[in-house]
């Protein structure tokens, strides 16, 4: 897929170069502008199609997990297979007692989990503001030493109630950072991951009164 970093300027240059090397007539600047626009629109459509496929797979995974009672693992699959993060943890948030409870994790050492179960700055800001916190958008002075490897603290919010956070610690080596599709998938998890986790808790409470 063509990344967003390849702008229409590059496309326009490529079109012009291709037309010259093929010996075709050189397009006017207006024709070039229209073709670049068309290509740009196509890129956007392809990007949205790419996202739709992944949102569909994420929804299906969560729905199936609800039936099987393993929503955390389904969230893990979305993180690993669709976003490319295999170092992550989910903490439930108990609003009444203001504390975090470790619920699931993959690729994160126990020592780190223990540290984060007390809550860190990015986690508290996520639950306090109800907004996902990204490491690269935090002022350096707000970051705690233990948060140096924390990429994001994704708030899990169901009907305005914060039910937990997903912590992303590390992306796969082939990923340079979070991309547009990843941010959309994280937005999906903010709401629908939270709903699924809450539903699963309700189901468990119903069977074990």
């Amino acid at each position, binding site marked *: 897929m063509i990344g967003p970093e390849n702008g229409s300027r590059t496309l326009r240059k490529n079109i012009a170069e291709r037309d010259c090397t093929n010996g075709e007539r050189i397009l006017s600047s207006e024709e070039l502008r229209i073709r670049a626009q068309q290509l740009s629109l196509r890129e956007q459509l392809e990007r949205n199609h*790419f996202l739709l496929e992944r949102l*569909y797979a994420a929804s*299906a*995974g969560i729905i199936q997990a609800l039936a099987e009672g393993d929503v955390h693992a389904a969230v893990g*699959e979305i993180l*690993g297979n*669709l976003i490319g993060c*295999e170092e992550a943890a989910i903490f439930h948030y108990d609003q009444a007692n203001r504390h975090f409870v470790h619920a699931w994790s993959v690729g994160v050492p126990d020592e780190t989990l223990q540290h984060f179960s007390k809550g860190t700055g990015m986690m508290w800001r996520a639950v306090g503001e109800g907004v996902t916190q990204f490491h690269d958008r935090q002022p350096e002075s707000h970051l705690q030493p233990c948060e140096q490897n924390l990429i994001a603290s994704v708030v899990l919010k169901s009907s305005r109630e914060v039910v937990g956070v997903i912590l992303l610690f590390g992306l*796969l*080596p082939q990923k340079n950072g979070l991309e547009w599709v990843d941010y959309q998938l994280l937005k999906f998890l903010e709401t629908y991951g939270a709903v699924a986790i809450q539903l699963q808790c309700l189901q468990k409470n119903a069977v074990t009164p």
Partner: protein
Amino acid sequence: MASKKILLVDDSCTARLVNRMIFSQKSNYELISAVDGKEAVERARLDKPDLILMDIMMPRMTGLEACRVIKQDKATSGIPVILLTTRGEESYVQEGYASGCSDYLTKPVNDAELLDLLRAYLGE
């Protein structure tokens, strides 16, 4: 022309679904699936797919082990196996090729990259 048969092997239903959707962009592929290496070996022998796309980290039998078994069996050794993994480091890639795989793709899967690879192996 008979459609080409692809065996998708992944224990993650999310990954299988995404791959199915990518393949559905090319309507002339018949897709069958397996959820671990052991089932992949059985299905390879039974269904004789034209290509196998297989995850590495799976329960019961890993993709690397399954690839070795498939490549050692005369009945299935000619089937191209593309391994799919989260680990893109050189040592993992080398281990993948040592198992006899034809190619190696890293997750998250890129639609265009995967379809290009399929075209290269299936001759379309």
